[in-house]
């Protein structure tokens, strides 16, 4: 089974039925899986803060939401994370491609990578980092934890985890 299928199996098993995505090359496989699953309503967003708004509404409508995006989105969404997701205490698992780490070919991605964990730390967002494939074994527990504590939770997934940039 591919790692993308395994991740989306865990997402479905956690009862997540509403997933919004903003694409990243590293996430292409997992986005295809999300689109293919009949259990999930997949709604692509044009920008990540828009996606967080959609997730907030879906949560209040009784669905467990999730957002899939790139780490550059942390720069786009700080206000939304703080004044919507955290202020109203809403759960939001964020599966994030951690661009700009080892095996990254695009120098500009490193500029955001060096800020990613510091920003998440500053925002008091629980953060998990998947570097090796076995790290994903914790995903079911991370999803349970997110909906237990009603917080945004970050799952950073780097190029080594995905088997190298562009190999999907």
């Amino acid at each position, binding site marked *: 089974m591919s790692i993308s299928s395994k991740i989306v199996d865990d997402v479905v098993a956690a009862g997540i039925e*509403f997933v919004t995505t903003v694409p990243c090359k590293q996430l292409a496989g997992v986005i295809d899986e999300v689109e293919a699953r009949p259990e999930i*309503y997949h*709604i*692509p*967003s*044009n*920008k990540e*803060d*828009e*996606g*967080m*708004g*959609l*997730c*907030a*509404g*879906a*949560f*209040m*409508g*009784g*669905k467990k*939401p999730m957002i899939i995006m790139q780490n550059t989105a942390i720069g786009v969404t700080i*206000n*939304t994370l*703080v*004044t*919507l997701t955290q*202020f*109203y*205490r*809403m759960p939001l698992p964020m599966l994030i491609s951690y661009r700009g780490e080892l095996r990254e070919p695009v120098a500009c991605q490193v500029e955001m990578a060096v800020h990613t964990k510091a920003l998440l730390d500053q925002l008091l967002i629980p953060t998990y980092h998947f570097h090796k494939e076995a790290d994903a074994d914790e995903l079911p527990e991370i999803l349970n934890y997110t909906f237990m504590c009603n917080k945004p939770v970050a799952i950073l997934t780097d190029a080594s985890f995905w088997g190298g940039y562009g190999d999907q």
Partner: protein
Amino acid sequence: MIRSEILKEIAPILRHQLVVCNIGIPSQELHAIDDQPSNFYMLGTMGLASSIGLGLALAQPKPVVVIDGDGSILTNMGTLPTIANNVAKNYILMIIDNGSYGSTGDQPTYTGKKTSLAKVAEACGCERVVECQDVDTGAVLQEALDSGEMTIMVVKCDSGNAKMPVITIDPVVIRDRFMKAVQA
């Protein structure tokens, strides 16, 4: 008419619906005119009322009325293609278009100049788009609710704000009572 006069007039329609209300003075006005547990007041996060409302409409069957503004739609213009391509028949986006950023001191927006949000919505693929004048808001809103079709309303009105108190309800209380209204 200014926004608060429209809200006063349509309050009897709104009180029976799930309402997601835009940040700042619009929420303060609605809260002062007719506070209901079925109102979700945005206390921050400019631009996302339409997105929150769409997520809500897609997640459950009750009608959802979003009270948005021209400035907020301009801030999150990407919302219109998402709305058009994810049709929720229980979704009404009511854009109060007064051609100004009301909460920040009535600075003009581009919709008071060359930009037509109704045409943008149509170009994005929204199928039922109704532009109307302030005095017709109640009738057009009721018609939208009765139609059972996703509707984008662009309500042209005057710029101006009523003086209302800031909302001091805790956001978690707003969210909790709103979710109970959704489930009721």
